[in-house]
């Protein structure tokens, strides 16, 4: 699932989506029953599909809803939807969904010498060091956050 660059000029870039989604309804189907056919008919493409933009690995992508304010600084607000990609490798500064001792959390991974931390992005909260005796398991890397304004 990729977005194909179609055309680029000084002001605008056009994309076409290549998607095999069954429910992708064509933007415009033509077939005007009376009057003149649309001059745009020959230039229509299927509608842009947000899945193409947000999901690189469908088999490895899960959604997670968050509650709380510990990641405000990273732009994650309470009620937001995270798009989590399990196929991505964790690197320093990745924002991850992980579980510690059976509880899920969302934090930024920071490596410091030989230590690893789960760091919140809100001064109210303290970083958590990941230690040997912890039951720590990574769920996946947060690839996108979707915030609803309405």
């Amino acid at each position: 699932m990729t977005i194909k660059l179609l055309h680029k000029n000084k002001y605008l870039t056009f994309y076409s989506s290549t998607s095999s989604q069954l429910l992708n309804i064509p933007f415009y189907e033509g077939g005007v029953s009376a009057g003149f056919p649309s001059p745009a008919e020959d230039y229509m493409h299927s509608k842009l599909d947000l899945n193409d933009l947000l999901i690189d690995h469908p088999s490895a992508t899960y959604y997670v809803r968050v509650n709380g304010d510990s990641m405000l600084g990273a732009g994650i607000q309470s009620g937001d939807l995270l798009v989590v990609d399990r196929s991505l490798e964790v690197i320093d500064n990745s924002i991850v969904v992980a579980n510690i001792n059976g509880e899920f959390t969302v934090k930024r991974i920071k490596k410091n010498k030989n230590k690893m931390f789960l760091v919140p992005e809100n001064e109210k909260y303290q970083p958590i060091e990941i230690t040997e005796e912890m039951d720590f398991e990574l769920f996946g890397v947060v690839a996108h956050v979707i915030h609803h304004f309405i």
Partner: protein
Amino acid sequence: MIGLADCNNFYASCERVFNPKIKGKPVVVLSNNDGCVIARSNEAKALNIKMGEPAFKIKPILQKHKVHIFSTNFALYGDLSERVMNTLKSEINKVEVYSIDEAFLDFSDFSSFDRAMSIRKKVKQWTGIPISIGIAPTKTLAKVANHIAKKSTKEGVFVLRERDITRSLQHLAVEDIWGVGRRNAFKLKQYGVYTALDFTNVNIEWLRRKFSINAVRLQKELKGERCYELELKKTKKKNICTSRSFGKETNNYNIIKQAVSNFANTCAVKLRNERSCCYKISVFLMTNRHKASAVQHFPYITLNFNTPTSDSFEIVSKANIALQTIYNNACIYKKAGVIVQSIVSENEVQASLFDTIDRKKRNRLMCSIDKINMLMGRDKIRLAAQGFDRKWKLKQEKLSPCYTTRFSDILSVNI
């Protein structure tokens, strides 16, 4: 070489992906209607909880060991299964999806062990589901290799080489061979055939006479001679069955009628998805076998269509005629089911001379209904006979959320 990838304790593993609290704890999944145990985590197996055991019988064990209990959540298991299969397909060109949690893999081009290890790692990382892979010269031996991978390796991968076949068949009971049922195993044991190795040593002519050509093939496969290739084309189903236990046992005709209408409609939708039509429909009812005092009744009837069909109207009304014939109001029924049989491909349908239905028109209607229901949700448009109150619906008291298929159910995390 052929590989068999098999998800470890699949249903229990699915529940664990979204519920890490139950990691390392005993987990069981109950059948439809919360009746019997149909999946166990290793910890639950260690408590000697058996497959198929009725939940009410083992209640003390479940309570004593704080076993985590789930109703079957097929929306979740189906979605995770698809993810596992797609991940396998991203690594291997030829994959035969054999069941919800098993797939045969074509390993002809690879040095198997390392390749299998990396596939196993990828599936675990991408989907959260642990799998085991057994690799061997034939499908039947791949099953054996998978068994060994699960039971006696740390890596979860086992390659069964030609020279090791004899040794591994020695320890495999004859009833654990793929495709040997309990009845055949019983018969074989009467002739002194106890292990898979014994089975490979019996006379081939004797096998053909006493059992069947399939038994001969099985023996060849166990000796490393390939009889079954990967089936890569989706074979059309021979029959489609939709049956459920009711939430509450009942003799109420209207409730049963509603249930049967829904099962019949589900069969019709499945037929259309496969682009098939059926010649025959069967309807059956069942009373509760475990209630000795109740009147027992297990009626079953098959009716024919003049022209093969996948039309919801026709199939549902025929199912209702069938139900009227077999229903007896003196019995309290526990379960009902609809089976469509003699399935042919849509384009092989022979038109009947006396057909009274405009099939082209009806076909268009069915297509439109299917499309709308796909967009707006299952059964948004339904036959009146399917009803709305769904009193027959099964008990699913311990159902986990549909984490991957419903936005209102997705994993919620406090951060």
